[in-house]
């Protein structure tokens, strides 16, 4: 297995001069993990703010604009409030699993972030089974949701968790298959290689019609994966209170909340990497300035995040049977046909290259 820790190299070199190589490797990993943790918990908070402002604009409101300039510190203040709150729990709850569940959710969300190539250098963990690893790790989150719902000793939480299980396991298929469609084109699971390949045209252009269909399926299934409206039956405020995290308060609730937004960012980031050329600028206009890659990556990702917010504030919630009909009768057959079409295109070399 070829693992190259690109951004860790500088830190590791610095540490190697002070201690043995293996110790330096571990310490470098810890430092990188802390850097990621810091960046993305703050980024998650700003995503929450973005969501609230965008939601407000969709509903002809103004949104939070009092704390800090244009409300920039609003979610920071909210997080501070949540930290200082009491951690409550239900009677006869399974205390161990109840306390474990939020960490499953937040750790699986943060773990997948390490693979995302923000630029050529800024990628913590470039594993050769990248896409596979991403799909695998992002589906661990559902275990946390199921544990939380089960251990809460609350009917609403249990119903929410079970719905989440049904939903995530169904839509996992579509996410996997739509990404597999693109893997046919790249022939590699490693994210850095996928990005390298897109220097001759983003994959959504290279793969044209089947790639666009795959992208649409990916966005629908990805929205369902993150349990956001219109697929938010897991939380379904009007039916279940708050679903699986009904009984959580304070910081544990904040973990669930933050994980939802990091997952949303993650889904958008994977779509950016696989379909829209990650940190590559359109037509290579800023190829000479490599650090601008982060900017391009964030612009593309936030546009896709905005698309998901647009879905959320437009569409009404689906029923459970409608949700399963959509997956098993529409998305999955279309996806399978789409893979065959993509295979045909790759075989006949009908790819559009710029």
């Amino acid at each position, binding site marked *: 297995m070829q693992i190259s820790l690109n951004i860790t190299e500088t830190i590791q070199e610095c540490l190697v001069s002070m201690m043995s190589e293996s110790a330096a490797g571990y310490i470098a990993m810890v430092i990188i993990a802390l850097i990621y943790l810091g960046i993305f918990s703050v980024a998650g908070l700003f995503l929450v703010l973005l969501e609230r402002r*965008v939601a*407000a*604009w*969709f*509903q*002809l*409101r103004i949104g939070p604009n009092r704390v800090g300039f244009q409300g920039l510190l609003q979610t920071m203040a909210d997080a501070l409030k949540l930290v200082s709150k009491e951690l409550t729990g239900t009677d006869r709850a399974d205390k161990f699993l109840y306390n474990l569940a939020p960490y499953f959710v937040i750790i699986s969300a943060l773990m997948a972030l390490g693979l995302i190539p923000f630029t050529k250098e800024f990628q913590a963990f470039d594993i050769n089974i990248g896409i596979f690893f991403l799909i695998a790790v992002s589906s661990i989150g559902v275990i946390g949701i199921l544990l939380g719902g089960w251990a809460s000793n609350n009917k609403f939480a249990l119903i929410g968790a079970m719905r989440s299980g049904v939903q995530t396991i169904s839509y996992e298929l579509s996410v996997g298959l739509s990404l597999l469609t693109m893997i046919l084109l790249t022939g590699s699971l490693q994210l850095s290689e996928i990005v390298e390949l897109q220097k001759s045209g983003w994959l959504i252009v290279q793969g044209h019609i089947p790639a666009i269909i795959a992208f649409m399926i990916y966005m629908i299934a990805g929205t369902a994966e993150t349990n956001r409206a219109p697929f938010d039956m897991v939380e379904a405020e009007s039916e279940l209170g708050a679903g699986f995290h009904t009984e959580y308060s304070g910081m544990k609730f904040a973990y669930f909340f933050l994980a939802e937004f990091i997952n949303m960012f993650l889904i958008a980031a994977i779509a950016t990497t696989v379909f829209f050329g990650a940190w590559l600028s359109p037509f290579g206009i800023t190829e000479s300035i490599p650090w601008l890659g982060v900017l391009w990556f964030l612009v593309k990702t936030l546009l896709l995040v905005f698309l998901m917010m*647009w879905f959320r504030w*437009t*569409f009404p919630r689906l029923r459970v049977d409608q949700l399963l009909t959509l997956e098993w009768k529409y998305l999955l057959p279309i996806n399978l046909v789409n893979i065959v079409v993509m295979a045909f295109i790759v075989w006949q070399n009908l790819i559009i290259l710029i």
Partner: protein
Amino acid sequence: MSYFSNIFNGIKTLLTGMSITGKYFLNSRKGAITQQYPDNRDTLKMFDRFRGEVIMPHDENNEHACTGCQKCEIACPNGTIEIIWDRGIDEHTGKNKKKIDKFVYHLSMCTMCGLCIDVCPTDAIKWGQNFENSVYDRTALTRVLNKPDSKLRAGVED
């Protein structure tokens, strides 16, 4: 074949919905309905049918239109209105007539149902637009609506 038409119908209707919310998103700067309340206190104008409190309008001669008929007091389901009245010589006609001494209005008991205003035969009481009704002492919520030394406007009873 309805399978494929279902898909295209689905996508079409979803896009219709998204275009509508998209238009709202783009126009939100101009058409935001949020009132930034403490900032726009000077320019904030409540809408016509807003029910803030019951008021009794007085004209420039300090005259009101309340004849003291007590219909509002009877109509009120909560006992919000108390009219303290007396009989006195009417200066226009010289007859001994009913006059209000104090029109007492307990805002703390009022549910803003509007029955008193509907029932008033002379339109002496109306809805006020004031909504900043909070006070530190609840006795301040008991108000006398007729101003001191105010009189009945001539010709109201005709």
